């Protein structure tokens, strides 16, 4: 197998790993490293939780004023 990954390299590959875009060879190096590195395992877990927490946010709705304006634009367009 290729040279083992070091922690500092691994953290830069986490997104590719989670996106399933890491080439197979690198994926193996990643998995091998994770298997016996507590720090990187914790890091990967933190990343997963971060993504999950971000997913709980609800985007700010459009301000009512902007929405009212928009609906007025629709009405004007219909009657034009």
């Amino acid at each position, binding site marked *: 197998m290729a040279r083992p990954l*070091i*922690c*500092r*390299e691994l*953290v*830069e590959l*986490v*997104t*590719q790993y989670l*996106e399933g*875009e890491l080439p197979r060879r690198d994926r193996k190096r990643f998995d091998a490293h994770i298997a016996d*590195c*507590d*720090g*990187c*395992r*914790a*890091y990967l*877990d*933190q*990343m997963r*939780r*971060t*993504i999950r*927490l*971000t*997913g*709980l*946010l*609800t*985007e*700010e*709705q*459009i*301000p009512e004023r*902007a*929405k009212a*304006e*928009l*609906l007025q*634009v*629709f009405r004007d*367009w219909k009657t034009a």
Partner: protein
Amino acid sequence: MLVDRYGPAMLRVARGFVRSQAVAEEVVQEAWLGVLKGLDRFEERASLKTWIFRILTNVAKTRGEREGRSVPFSSLATDADGEQAVDPERFFPPGHASAGAWAAPPRPWEDVPEDRLLSQETQAAVARAIEELPEAQQTVITLRDVQGWAPEEVCNVLGITETNQRVLLHRARSKVRRALEQYLEG
């Protein structure tokens, strides 16, 4: 209602192309008008969402160019420009026997009580971290992780490459993680 469903994402995307929130709102309005006018030309082969956002980015780009603003997504984010996911100080320095390994490893969040992790305050910390990101990173993380878009959709709408999309997402997520770590452990 479509306006509610796509409105926030449309504003977010528009915001990436023009200078102010007010102009972004105008762009969204103009885009909806374009949608209405073009509705009879809409072919169902394309998804309505893709089509709406294509109209939106066209309007936004035109407005952005008129404002003389360079499109943020056109400034290529590459891995080469040195932004680090983690503070380099947390690894053993070059020359050290364990160079590049964690000197200050992250702590497992499994120990953080679930109700703290899911609390309003934690969510507010995440939201704040996102607001502090550069515009392009903010847009990508919002579309991907808040709105749940697929990577291809983000690339198409913003007109960026897969690599660029991923780099922006990587930086954004890394910074949000860092902010959360500070918040939870600080």
